[in-house]
């Protein structure tokens, strides 16, 4: 069987769980699928997930699972795996999964394949596609070392609305023993650094700048292009890390997720962490000196060239009319 571990917080389901369910349905072949909901109080999530076309939903509630810690989740999930003995365990590739899935794999000494963007074949013969070398290459990998293989599904790689529904799966409670004394992390409440002054999610057009801009003194070029296009300025992570633009203008998994009418990627190579934040944009333009840059894989229009020549030429063209 395939076990999908849902992600939830305070009884609210993370939508990426549906993407993992869609991936599980594609992978399954003849294998049945069960979804596990893990947490202190999971509310109506089990009922919500029971509408998926799956064999069953397992609810594993324990007070020690709130707030989230990698130690408690590893304890809960290893007990769950021990009791249901799946062939594959699928999880959405969220920050929470990235925190505990390697610990879980190490604890039970089973393979973990992260960041999966596609699955070839079904059942035990399946191979998993994942980016390597900053997205410059795609690797097909096979787990080694026996079942279960843990697999994390990249956000946006499978469509949540492709998950087949129409099931009325049985919901079953599972009793868990978690040793609260074994939890070594004591988390405080999540917080936001500063009020987000700019909501890039509302922008119609975005000009985003990456490492290709080379230095802070060139940022005004991107700002000028944005102004000419009626766009907001945004950036990939390294630009914000350097303090060239404020963190609140960062696009990607650690920043904002946007889907504007027009997204212009200026000197952005297109690492997966950036792509997940912008690939839903309606029209994507990529300008990069490297013809092999992964950003071109998601672009509608591409120009291979020196952005210091191309951007001024676009500004001049827009100012003409």
């Amino acid at each position, binding site marked *: 069987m395939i076990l999908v571990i849902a992600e939830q917080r305070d009884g609210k389901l993370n939508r990426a769980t549906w993407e993992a369910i869609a991936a599980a349905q594609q992978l399954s072949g003849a294998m049945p699928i069960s979804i596990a909901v893990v947490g202190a109080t999971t509310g109506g999530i089990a009922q919500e997930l029971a509408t998926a076309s799956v064999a069953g939903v397992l609810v594993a509630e324990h007070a020690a699972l709130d707030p989230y810690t990698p130690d408690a989740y590893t304890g809960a999930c290893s007990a769950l795996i021990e009791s249901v003995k799946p062939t594959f365990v699928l999880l959405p590739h969220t920050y929470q999964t990235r925190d505990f899935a390697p610990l879980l794999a190490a604890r039970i000494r089973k*393979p973990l394949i992260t*960041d999966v963007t596609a699955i070839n074949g079904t059942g035990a013969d399946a191979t998993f596609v994942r980016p390597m070398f900053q997205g410059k*290459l795609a690797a097909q990998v*096979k787990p080694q070392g026996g079942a279960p293989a843990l697999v994390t599904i990249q956000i946006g790689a499978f469509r949540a609305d492709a998950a087949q529904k129409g099931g009325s799966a049985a919901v079953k409670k599972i009793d868990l023993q978690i040793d609260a004394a074994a939890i070594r992390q004591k988390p405080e409440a999540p917080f936001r650094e500063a009020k987000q002054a700019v909501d890039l999610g509302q922008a119609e057009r975005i000009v985003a700048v990456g490492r290709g801009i080379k230095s802070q003194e060139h940022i005004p070029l991107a700002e000028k292009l944005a102004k000419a296009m009626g766009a907001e300025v945004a950036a990939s992570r390294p630009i914000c*890390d350097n303090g060239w633009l404020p963190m609140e203008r960062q696009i990607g998994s*650690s920043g904002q997720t946007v889907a504007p009418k027009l997204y212009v990627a200026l000197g952005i*190579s297109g690492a997966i962490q950036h792509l997940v934040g912008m690939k839903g944009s309606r029209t994507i333009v*990529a300008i990069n000196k490297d013809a092999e840059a992964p950003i071109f894989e998601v672009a509608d229009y591409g120009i291979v060239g020196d952005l210091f020549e191309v951007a001024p030429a676009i500004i001049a063209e827009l100012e003409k009319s």
Partner: protein
Amino acid sequence: MAARIVVTMKIAVCIKQVPTREWQPRLNDSKTWIREQDVSYEMNEPDAYALEEALRLREKHGGEVVVCSAGPARVQTVIREALARGADRAIHVEHDSLGSADAFVIADALAAAMKDEKFDLVLTGLQSDDQGHGQTGVILAERLGIPSSTIIMDVQVEGSSMRVKRELEGGWFQWIVMPLPALLTIQSGINQLRYATLKGIMAAKKKEIRKATVPDGLQPAQQIVGLAVPTRSKQTHMITGAPADAAKELVRRLRDEARAL
């Protein structure tokens, strides 16, 4: 595990040598790995931030910073670079097969070489720019029997415990209190990197690099059966020509075809 009172800190930093960002991928004949003879290498960027954080913690609390790397002979270059930036000594787990090994093998190899050192704190980058599993640090923590926390943006050591700032999605953060010894995976941008001075480079030549061997019987957890340039998910219209012509064509298409301007 009993909490350890830390007077001065013994900090390990795990670094990996990866292809440079400018490197253009070329595959080996069996298309299961890259053609290594074409590659120029550099220090994995998140590991460079982990190293910087370790150096800052040492400056604040005293102690030593030990660089640990698992890889072929070539990784000596990044070990020397880390020593030049200020690390005190190094451990090199050397074997040709480690250049393409997966996270389980690397973590097990590092754990065997590091376990007797009894480090107070182990730092790694959150993932590597080559295979990018994002697993090695956390597996290493489990093998060393110490707690871990990942994607860390601030580290405040307070006696026998520490408070660390973990990055969550979408601009959210969370402070976590945990005991020492522990392992943290460090996010890029946690600090401003320093670069090696000439004095540092000279001093690095005299610093100790302990060689360690790979334990027998390490089992990989996955096998790369194929490596390829990714297929495009979209039909990309590539616009060619001189900058002025390309700009004109792009603007025309964005107005008339995409109706995005």
